[in-house]
């Protein structure tokens, strides 16, 4: 049995490409080419060179000594926060921009929640000299101002999404609309393992470098390439997909996906899709999503702009349904506390998204010799205001 995608673009019963005909040529072009292109030696070479010299990979696997002592277990942090632009998102945008160039596209669009994916997209567009339009919810524009400023510096146009909850979901709608309107010259760089097939698989493959590195880095440090646990937060699920990828079919490695409980899973202000979601279609794929009984998509809530999404990628829907991964929901407060704790104990300011993953240690007990790898998906510079206000620092 595999927990990975099948030839038809499904993870178990989830996935597929539920797209309007207007998107068919674009998505089909991508589907037919993505695997072919990704294995080309020249593509591999360019991708790997940029990951190394531009992104700064490998990202360290850092043994968090003081945190490990506190929780009496072995905690390793996979330092995606050290990547250029400050999160795992760039792994994917580097891959997709190279893909877009090979498909002859000269205009790039993207959606963004926390702004990390928008910055990562604006960055690779600047690098390649391509036009870049980023859709971002009006609310997220306000709460992630530093990232908006960065996108502008990088020459991208940031277009506010004014509909719905004015967050990530709506930015994604706008991006898809743009793509429908510009079917020939435009590539849509989706920022997570969501969207129609082949996006979830393509993004997961670009992010898979994370678990590939964990394997050899852990081998160096613990003389085994298998952690006992891999923990990652899940918005759409790309950092988790990357951190899980090479362990998906190795059930010795336990996987923990951490969702945003917002003000409490059942408070009505939450983004805990695995608990609150039902099977349905969002942004072109069949997956779990939060919705009314009538099938209207619900407005999610999380203090973290990157987790504020009413669905999860189809891989995660499958990991949940099959029981392969354990899903845990963490509230705003617990995440913030875990984030501040990392600052004070390890000198690392995590993205609030990543703080959700770090909060796991207050919720689950690990054994002293368990090796727990936590995906530190991004740095918290974009979140300083939110932290400062939350703690009245």
């Amino acid at each position: 049995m595999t927990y990975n995608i099948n030839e038809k673009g499904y993870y178990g019963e989830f996935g597929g490409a539920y797209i309007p005909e207007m998107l068919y040529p674009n998505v089909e072009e991508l589907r037919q080419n993505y695997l072919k292109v990704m294995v080309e030696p020249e593509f591999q070479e360019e991708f790997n060179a940029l990951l190394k010299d531009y992104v700064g990979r490998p990202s360290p696997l850092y043994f968090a000594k003081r945190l490990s002592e506190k929780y009496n277990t072995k905690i390793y942090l996979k330092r995606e926060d050290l990547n250029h632009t400050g999160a795992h998102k760039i792994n994917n945008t580097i891959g997709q921009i190279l893909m877009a160039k090979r498909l002859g596209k000269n205009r790039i669009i993207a959606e963004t929640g926390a702004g990390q994916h928008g910055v990562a997209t604006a960055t690779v567009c600047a690098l390649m000299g391509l036009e870049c339009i980023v859709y971002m919810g009006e609310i997220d524009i306000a709460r992630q101002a530093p990232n908006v400023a960065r996108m502008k510096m990088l020459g991208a146009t940031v277009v506010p999404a004014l509909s719905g909850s004015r967050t990530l979901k709506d930015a994604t709608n706008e991006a898809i609309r743009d793509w429908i309107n510009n079917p020939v010259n435009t590539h849509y760089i989706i920022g997570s393992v969501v969207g129609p097939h082949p996006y979830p698989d393509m993004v997961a493959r670009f992010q898979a470098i994370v678990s590939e590195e964990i394997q050899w880095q852990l081998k160096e440090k613990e003389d085994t390439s298998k952690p006992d646990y891999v923990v990652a937060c899940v918005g759409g699920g790309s950092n988790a997909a990357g951190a899980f990828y090479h362990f998906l079919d190795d059930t010795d490695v336990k996987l923990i996906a951490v969702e945003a409980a917002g003000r409490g899973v059942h408070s009505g202000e939450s983004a805990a899709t695995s608990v609150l979601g039902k099977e349905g279609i969002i942004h072109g794929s069949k997956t779990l999503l939060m919705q009314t009984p009538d099938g209207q998509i619900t407005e999610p809530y999380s203090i973290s702009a990157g987790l504020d999404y009413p669905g999860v990628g189809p891989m995660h829907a499958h990991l949940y349904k099959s029981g392969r991964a354990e899903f845990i929901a963490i509230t705003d407060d617990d995440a913030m506390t875990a984030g501040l704790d990392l600052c004070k104990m390890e000198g690392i300011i995590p993205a609030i998204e990543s703080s959700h993953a770090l909060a796991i240690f207050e919720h689950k007990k690990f054994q002293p010799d368990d090796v727990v790898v936590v995906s530190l998906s991004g740095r918290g510079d974009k979140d300083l205001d939110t932290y400062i206000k939350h703690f009245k620092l």
Partner: protein
Amino acid sequence: MNRINQKLQENNSEKLLSIYFTAGYPNLNDTTTIIQDLEKGGVGMIEIGLPFSDPLADGPTIQASSTQALKNGMTTEVLFDQLKDIRKTVNIPLVIMGYFNPIMQFGVEAFCKKCKEIGIDGLIIPDLPVDVFNDQYKSIFEKYDIINVFLITPQTSEDRVRFIDSISKGFIYMVSSASVTGSSSGFGDTQTDYFKRIAKMNLKNPQVIGFGISDHETYIQATKYAKGAIIGSAFIKNLSKNGVDNTARFIHSILN
């Protein structure tokens, strides 16, 4: 015979105006009035929009009307309830246009069954792809004699147009330009070339052109090449601006 087939095959030379509107907009209970007025005004077919929170193939006008309709309390249940006696007063083909998720949540079979009971003739589900329909839902649609309408766009390859023609039963929804609803104004050379190209293909299904038709001129242009034309955003705008009572006058302005 399904009303759609009847309508589109009767009088081969007659052109047909089809109107899209969002159910529950501007007010929750305007649905039947609008349908009746449209038929009276001379419309040949109606697309009843089942509103959705995230209508990603629609432009701002239809999106705003959907948001309002949902706020007004429109749901799948409510819509079916409003339509339950519609066939007592209305004869032209009725099509429900909606995104797949609400239909899926209702249950595809339950949805088709309900349509059949009421007298809905077809469905347009923009985000239900052809292959998924063929693999999973075709037999259900056939069981209840509901026609599923597929779209083609200027970017659809000739092969794929032929394939879609081969599996279509009522008509082909020909998107005038690859774009969300409500975006362009008037047709240029690229579009008329595309209209001509498709017309020359001699497809077995009649084509109805949608997207970008907003007035008499574009209606005439479109129906020069196709069996019919669909107006959506322009009609919604008219509802917003001139109210529910103005339907007859709007239709008149398009047809004459």
